[in-house]
Structures are given as C-alpha cells and as structure tokens.
C-alpha cells in the first residue's frame, strides 16, 4: 500500500518527460534493436564457421563476414543512438525540475524558510535531483529490459521442459519475497541517508557563514566535533545501507545458482529415467546460466529505484507545500500610501502567545510614524506585516483602504520597501545589490539614493559600482553595509518606506547627515521608522509606543516624553544622564 502511494511520487514526475516523448520512443527502439543485434552477431559468427569455413565455400565467406562487420557497426551505432538521445530528456527533466523547485522556494513565505535549513533545501535541489536523473537515465530502461529478458528466458524454459521450467519460475517466489522485504527496509535507510546528507550540508553552511564567530572564539575544534559527529552518523547510516544491500544483492545472486544445482540434479535424474534428452538438458542449463546477470542487476536497479523514490518524495515535499502567502487580485494604480493596522495581531506558528495583538495604528499618506519599543517587543514583526513577509493572524492591515491580502504581491511590494535591521547583501556587484528593488533605475537615481544614504563611498571602490562585494557584503564596514541597504530601499521609490533601526551602525555625524537627507525623502512618502534613539525618533511626525504586544500610546515625542513614564524610560535615559558625567 505504502509502496503504491510513495512510488506515485516518482510517477508524478512523468509530466517532466512529456516534452521528450519522441526522444523516449527512439531510445526504446534503439535499446531493443541494440539487444536484438547483440543476439544476432554470435549467430552470424556461427553461421560462418559452420557454413563457408567448414564446407570450404570461399565465395560465401566475404558476404557473411561483411554482414558481421555491418552488424557490429550497427550495434555500436544503436548504443550510441540510445546514449546520445537520452541526454536531452534526462537532463531536461533534471533542469526543469530544479528550475521549478527554485521558483517554488522563492514563493514560499518566511515562515517556511524559518523552519527549513538551506542545507536541506540544497540537498534536494542537487543530490536528490541527480539520483532521480540517474534513475530515469538508465535505471528505468534497464529495469524494463531486464524484466523483458527474464520473461523471455523463462518462457523459453517453460516451452522447453515445463516441469523444470516451473521449478525455475518457482524460484521467483523467494526473490520477490526478499525484494519486498528489502524494499521496505531500504527505503527507510535511504531516506535517512538523504536527510542526514542535508543535515551535514547545513552544518557546513553554518560553519562557513559563522566563520568569524568561530575564529573570534577559537572554537574550530568545537565546530569540527559537531561536524565530525554528523559525518560519522552519516557514515554509520550509509554502512547500514551497504550491509543491507550487500546481503540482498548476494542472496539475489545465489538463488539462481542454487536453482541451477537443482535443475542439474533433477534434470540428470530425468535424463536417467528417460524423461529428458541430454541435449535439452544442456540447452536448459545454458539458458538458466544466462539468468544470473539480469537477476543480480535487478537487485541493483531496485535499490536505485528505491533511492529515486525517496528522493522524489523529498523533492515533492517541498513542491507540495502550498505558499501560505499569495497575492490577491487588486493592483494599486495610484497608491497614496495610507497604512492602517486594524486590530492586527500576530502569533508565530507554534508559539504560545501572540507577539502582537489588537494593534491599531494609522499612518496617513506622507506621514511618518516612529515605532518605539523595548528589545524583542515586536517592532520588526510589526513592520513585516505591511509587505506581507508575514501575514497577520488576527485583524488586518490596509493600504489605501484595501486589505494588503487583496493586493497582488508585486503591487504591494512595490508600494512598500524596507531597509532591514540587518543589511542583507549578496556577493554581487554593488549596482545589482542596489537595484534589487528597482531594476530600471538610472545612474542619476542611483546617485541620488546613494547621496541620501551617505553611501557615495561606493564610487571610490576599485571598480566603482561594478565592484563585487564579498558574501553578505563582508568586504565593507558595518556602517557601509547599512548605508548601502538604506540606499537600496530609497532607490526602490516606494510610497511606504520602512526603516527598521537602520542607523544603528552609523557614527553620530554621518547619522545626522543621513537624517537630514531622509527628512526630505520622508516628507512626501509614508514612513514607518523603528527607533531606539531619540535622534531617529525626531524623523517622525508621531510616535507609537509598542509595549506588551500592542500599541499603547500614539503621540508626539515631547508629549509622550512628558506623559508616559515607560516611554521616557525607553528613550530619555540618555537625556537623564548628567551630560558631563557621561564620559567619566
């Protein structure tokens, strides 16, 4: 039952082969013809020896010899034809599946990516797909060919001498029983191997991304120990797989030989009692000998098939995950950027209590609101609700009166741009990083955005805007990264600009310059600014205090400072300091 359900994973991939049906047909024809020619060639040799050579018929030698030559060439050509033709469908399947997987992964929301390690995703996109490719490449073909070959031989055997033929057929029973049992266990262990390979990839990724932290603490040994443990676990699991398949492969090979011994014994006895001629027995045993290879390779191919099935399961696990966040039908033609949180609430999946609840907040077009709250109070989460990086779990968020869930994702996300608290940069050119949200920006727009963010230092990089910045922008200083991320958000020319604590890594003087420039930008777009410092708060027209998971106060900075002790504690502590004592 399980087998049927799970093998359907592999079966479901068949649509990827549909564009290649003609090639597939050609492959099958070439394969069958190749086998037929392979059988005929020895017959021609025998014909030459038994015919012209034995009877001294020199005239017939040449044509027959040329026939052998032609057939030999034809066999090679057919093999070539099969191998060459199969390249396109097999690679086509793999490539298309990988494209689709990637496309799908890009559509899956943050909540999915929170849970899934990229090592696991990667192992699906590479290792698993190549297993599937190999199965479709030759496993499937040989499986069918082997079964045909086995069927033919057994039919011949039954035709030759049915009692002995039945005996041979009977040995299929233990083989099938073994295969079914093997299949069940092998599938489990091969799935486990694939999962552990993904875990190992995850550890590798962490060790590379966290290299600075590892170095800073000198924890190479510690990290290595973790990796080594996982690598040894994988080693152990693969060895279990090896032992399992070694036992199965061996049994599958021994069974035909035991059958042969039985055939010999019973056949000889039958000859002794006159029920069988010696010639038939010879022919019979020769045929039984020929069964050995297809049967034993069947074992190998079954194993490959199992692996392909679990690989397909793993790939489809991802492809079958429905994107929880999909767009609605509405496109905002002329967005004004009127943002309202209407009783919005959010709970992380699996978390006990919501991070946000009953958030009511209105940001009018052109207005800027500062969101202030303690560390971990949910500010970042709140800002993620607007571009639907996360979806509210209660209430709703609207832009220009439309629930954000009714807008198409593209429309929504072109209205809102965010500069994240951690500048997410890619190892690409500066230009490409900047134009992430606006691929059609002109040089002038680029310069303007860079000037606003005080990030014109990029023009001084060795290749200017074409310089590649290291992974995650690591070849830049912390403040440079942050300014670049800010410039990117500005360049997107959104109606709603979200700045999530984006000035934290700047020195005071640069910060003041950026703030002055941002004031300009924010004067005609809607702004949501997350702030820990009074200086940033001053960018905003009003302040929303986030506390206990909801917006408790909205008002002007000075007003809240005077009225709300909690707000004062959060922001004004700097001011409470005795300015002269601050540095001693």
């Amino acid at each position, binding site marked *: 039952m399980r087998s049927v359900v799970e093998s359907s994973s592999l079966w479901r991939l068949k649509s990827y082969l549909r564009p290649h049906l003609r090639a597939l047909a050609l492959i099958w024809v070439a394969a069958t013809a190749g086998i037929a020619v392979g059988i005929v060639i020895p017959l021609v040799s025998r014909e030459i020896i038994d015919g012209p050579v034995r009877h001294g018929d020199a005239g017939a030698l040449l044509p027959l010899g040329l026939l052998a030559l032609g057939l030999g060439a034809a066999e090679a050509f057919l093999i070539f034809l099969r191998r060459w033709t199969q390249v396109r469908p097999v690679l086509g399947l793999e490539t298309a599946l990988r494209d689709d997987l990637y496309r799908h992964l890009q559509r899956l929301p943050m909540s999915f990516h929170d849970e899934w390690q990229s090592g696991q995703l990667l192992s699906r996109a590479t290792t698993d797909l190549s297993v599937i490719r190999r199965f479709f490449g030759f496993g499937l073909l040989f499986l069918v060919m082997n079964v045909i070959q086995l069927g033919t031989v057994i039919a011949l055997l039954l035709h030759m001498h049915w009692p002995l033929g039945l005996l041979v057929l009977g040995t299929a029973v233990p083989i099938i029983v073994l295969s079914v049992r093997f299949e069940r266990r092998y599938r489990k262990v091969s799935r486990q191997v694939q999962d552990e390979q993904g875990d190992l990839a995850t550890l590798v990724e962490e060790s590379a991304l966290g290299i600075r932290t590892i170095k800073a603490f000198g924890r190479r040994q510690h990290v290595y120990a973790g990796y080594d443990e996982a690598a040894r676990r994988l080693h152990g699991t693969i060895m279990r797989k090896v032992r399992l398949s070694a036992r199965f492969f061996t049994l599958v090979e021994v069974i035909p030989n035991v059958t042969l011994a039985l055939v010999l014994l019973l056949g000889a006895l039958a000859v002794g009692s006159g029920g069988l001629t010696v010639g038939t027995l010879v022919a019979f045993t020769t045929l039984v000998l020929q069964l050995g290879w297809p049967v034993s390779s069947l074992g190998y191919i079954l194993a490959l098939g199992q692996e392909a099935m679990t690989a397909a399961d793993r790939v489809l696990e991802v492809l079958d995950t429905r994107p929880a966040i999909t767009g609605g039908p509405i496109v905002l033609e002329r967005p004004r950027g009127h943002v309202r949180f209407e009783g919005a609430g959010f709970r992380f999946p699996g978390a006990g209590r919501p991070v946000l609840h009953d958030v009511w907040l209105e940001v009018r077009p052109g207005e800027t609101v500062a969101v202030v709250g303690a560390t971990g109070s949910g500010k970042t989460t709140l800002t993620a609700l607007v571009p639907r990086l996360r979806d509210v779990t209660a209430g709703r968020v609207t832009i220009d009166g439309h629930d954000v869930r009714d807008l198409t994702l593209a429309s929504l996300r072109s209205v809102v741009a965010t500069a994240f608290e951690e500048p997410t940069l890619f190892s690409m050119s500066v230009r490409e990083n900047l134009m992430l949200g606006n691929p059609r920006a002109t040089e002038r727009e680029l310069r303007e955005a860079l000037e606003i963010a005080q990030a014109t230092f990029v023009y001084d990089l060795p290749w200017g805007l074409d310089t590649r910045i290291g992974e995650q922008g690591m070849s830049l200083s912390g403040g440079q990264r942050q300014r670049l991320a800010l410039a990117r958000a500005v360049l997107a020319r959104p109606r709603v600009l979200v700045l999530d604590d984006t000035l934290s890594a700047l020195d005071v003087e640069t910060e003041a310059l950026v703030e002055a420039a941002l004031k300009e930008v924010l004067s005609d777009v809607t702004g949501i600014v997350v702030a820990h410092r009074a200086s940033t708060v001053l960018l905003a027209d009003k302040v929303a205090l986030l506390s206990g998971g909801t917006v408790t106060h909205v008002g002007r900075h000075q007003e809240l400072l005077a009225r709300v002790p909690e707000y004062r504690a959060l922001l004004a502590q*700097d001011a409470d300091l005795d300015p002269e004592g601050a540095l001693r």
Partner: protein
Amino acid sequence: MSAAPDPAAPPGAAGVPPAAAGWRGVAAEPEPDEPRGRAFLLLDRSGRSRRLLGALLRPHRAAIALLVVLIVVSAAAGLAIPYLVKVGIDAGIPPLVAGHAPATLLAAVGGVLGAALLQGLTRQAFLRLSGRVGQDILLELRRRVFTHFQRLSPAFHERYTSGRVIARLTSDVEAISEMLGSGFDRVVTAVLTLAGTAAMLLVLDARLALVALLPLPVLVLLTLWYRRESAAAYRRTRETVALLIVHFVESMTGIRAVQAFRREERNQEIFERLNADYRDANRRSMHLSALYMPGTKLIGNVTVALVLLYGGWLALHGSVTVGVLAAFLLYLRQFYEPMQDLSQFYTSVQSAGAALEKLAGVLAERPAVAGPARAAALPSGRGPGGGVGREGVEFRSGDGPPVLHRIDLAIPAGQTVALVGPTGAGKTTLAKLIARFYDPVAGRVLLDGVDLRDLDEATLRRTVVMVTQENFLFSGTVADNIRFGRPDATMAEVVAAARAIGAHEFIAGLPDGYHTRVGKRGGRMSAGQRQLVAFARVFLADPAVLILDEATSSLDVPSERLVQRAMATVLAGRTALIIAHRLSTVEIAQRVLVVEDGRIVEDGPPDRLIAAAGRFAALRRAWLDSIA
C-alpha cells in the same frame, strides 16, 4: 492567485539592466571557479589530486589487497559453476543411464552448491569491505576539507562564499562517492579477464592474435582523446554546479530581501541561466561518454568481424583448424566485452577526478593567517597580562589602497580603550588585526611582547576574544549559543553569564527558557536579543583581552545601560577595546583613540581630549546634541 499575470510587475527580461551579464561584479581576485588556462591546469592540478588520492588510499592498502583476493576468489567460483554443470552432465549422466549410483552427479551438484555458496560469501564480504573502505575514504576526505576550510582566513571565505564551501563538501564529495560505488569489482575482473584472454589468444594462434590486438592502439588513442575532453568537461560540471549552489544558497539566505524587493523574477532568470550552464556542462560530458562507450564497442565488434574474415580465409587455406577459429572467436568476445565495464568505470573516474581536483585545490590553499613554525609561550606570572602593542602596523586588502597607515600603539595590560571615529574609518580593521583575523601587511602586532604570528592559535584565542559587529548564532538552543564561549560551562554558569548582562529576563520568558531553539542563524530572536546572547557568550568566555565591536548597537537604551553596568565590572583589570558610535558605551574607557581614514588622529584620556577641543570633542558634542 498570485501566479496570475500582474501588470505592476516588471516585465521580466525587459527590466534587466544593460549590464545584465555583469551582475556578479568585478572582484580583485579571479573567480575561484572560473576556468583558467586549460592545458596548464591539466598538468598542474592532476599531480596535486593524484597525491591527494594516494594519501587517501594509503591507509587502506591491506584492505584493497584483500578486496582483490575476494574478487578473484569470487570470480573463480563464478567461473567454476558452468564448468561443474558441464561435468555433471558429461560425467554424471552416463552412470545414471547405466543404472549406477548417482555419485558423480551428486558430487557435481554439491560442487555447484559449494561454489555458489563460496561466491556468495566472498561477494558479500567484498561488498561490505569495499563499502567500508569507500566510506572511510569519504569520511576522511570530508574531515580534511572541512578542517582546512576552518583554517582558512575570513578574507578567503568572503571571496570564496559559503555556497562554494558547501558545493565542495557536498556535490564534489558525492561525485567521488559515486565512483567508489561504481563497480570496482567489475574492473578487477575485467582486467584479469583481459590479461587472461590475451594470453589465451596468443597461445591459440599468434597470427590471429596479432590481428585481434591490432586495433588496440586505436583504442588507446580514443581513450586519450576521451580523457582530455572529459577532464575539461567534468571540470566544467564541477564549476557550474558550484556557481549554481552559490546562487541557490545566497538567495535562500537572503530570502527576506528577495521577497521584499520583488527580486524573484531576476533571481529566477539568473538561476535558470546557471542551471542551463550546468545542464550544458553535463550534456557535454554525457555526450562524450555517449561517443566513447559505443566507440570501444565499435572497435571490439570490428575486430571480431576482421578476425572472422581473416581466420575464415586462413581456415579455408587450412592454416588454422576450424576448432581453433571457433575457440578464438569465443575468447575474442571475452576480450572485448569487459572493455565496456572498463570504459564505464573510466567515465566515473574522470568525473571523480574533476571533483578531487577541486578538493585538492582547496587543500592547497595556504591559510593567509598561518600558525607559527614554533609556538612561543606568553610570558607568565605577570598578572592577567594582555598588553597589546603595535609597531608600524599597515594593512591593506589585496592591492587596494591601504586601510590602515603605519600605526604605532601600545595598550598596557588592563587598560580599557575606546575606539571612535566615523564609519569606514578602519576601527574594525584595527580590532581584527589584534584578534588576528588578518596579518598586517607591514609591521607587527604584539601581545605581551610576543608577535601574534608566533603564538599558537589556542593560546591566542584563549587570550583574545572579539565580539564582531555581525554576531552569528548557530542553530541550537540559547544555552548552546552562550556556551559557545566556553563549551565546558555548566548550566549555572550559563545562567549567571546571562544574568550578569541582563539577558536572563528575556531568555527566561522564552517558551523553553534556555532550551529554546534559536532557529537558523538565530532567526527566532530579535536583533537585540541576538546581541544579548552574543554578549553573554563573550562574558562566559572570560578572556584577558576583550574586543567589543558595536556590541550593543541594536539594544534599547535600558538594555544597553544594563550591559554597560555589567561591563564596568567585567572590564576591571582586563585589557579591553571598545568600538562604539554611541558614546555612552565608551564612558567607562580610560583612554580614547580617534580613528580617521586609517590613522589615529587623537589619543588620550577622555577629559583631556574634551578639553583639547579636537575631533573627539566635536564627536561628543554631536552626540550630546543627538540625545538631547
């Protein structure tokens, strides 16, 4: 449905900037995986990978010898079976017909069973042993490469990117594992069969044997051609898959920005191009083997036909007997048949070879920050120690402009120093030189009078710990992450560290307290929470020299206060270097260094600098204005 055509979306390719092909940008160093001079590499790299292969195989010499024995026994047992059947029929049946006891028959049947059993046993032993050897080799390779990557400097990793590291340790290792699992047994049998039948051919008839072996040079030429072409093709496969993985990993890591900025289309386009490159590389190698394998088959088949003609002609003229010719043809078939197995194996060897070459290339990277030939010890018995000196330190990356210009600086043990200055001035770089993330281009950095380059890593890391600007959390629990500072710390110590810096409250409030999983890269924590955990981590590590690079920048003011209060106690008697833009953080410093454009422009106790009305005084005034 979001899949519906969307007028607001940029119309795919039309939105691509003109410099589309240059999206990757220009870097100072050549792309590690871009193919360079081909012929040159063939010579150079294969030597390196062969040495690596040798080193990996050497410990398994005995096992490999045993494997060969097992194969030979198993093959012999396999060959004995048809022979025993023939004996059973030829010698076992006549006594039966004559009505005698079936002794010979039973012996033959017993023989077949015995041989089958022997074959089974040796085969199973072979499969297990070869599996073990293969997996041991892979494990060793994984360990070596992983350790080596960890030794290489952060500068290397910036350029190489995590994606490529992953590619090396997954995809390349798997290519090798495929070869290890691809019928080593059949190769040995094939070689033995080849040798045996070649001898048989020569014994049977030298003239015919000569004709039969005549095409061998063609085979050799074909193989040489294939080797050259496929080496390049498989190398290309490794390179393209690495680029594919880099892009994949990076877009998954930055998925938040990808989605927020509607980068999906462009990413998809880039990915599909990389995927197509990878497919083309694969296609090339598959096409090559689609030529090579039937090529060997063709040579074999043509040879058989030629021998048939020539032998037939000889037989007609009576210079060979028909029996010899028949036998010869049978053996000839056996000679060319194993060629298929060999060429199949050769294909996977080529593929593995390209992967091995890449791994050997990684192993050949010398760490830019290398350990000392002979480690010096830190002078002991001088209290906590941790004095830092720099003499004429200069730093630049690659051949770019210098980031730091000749800096001379001495920090006495126990002093708390604040580094301030505009962004991009070189503060982090200066700090990283002390933590030996890089080595200076000129000059030296001393710790208690010892050049950092003479210290072994363990001593250095025990003494100097740095909290980097970008703190990284490993997936695991909060406690695991704090314990990263000192892996043998007890739970109580972990809690004490968190308490000391004021992180206990929030951790205790998490669903599973200290056992809450932080998610990948700490994604389940808020930015400030991540900084607190990173701070607790360094608190627990308790080093003599502590470097804090913007360690509190994302905290709210009260939390920052708590951390500062904790720092006042922690830093007492410790050498510390604090980098911060919020000058409140540096108030505990006894000395302030102002860095600008890679130079120290002011140096002295804060009071004096304020009185001097220089850069620091100006910075501080701006700061006071900003918080007013």
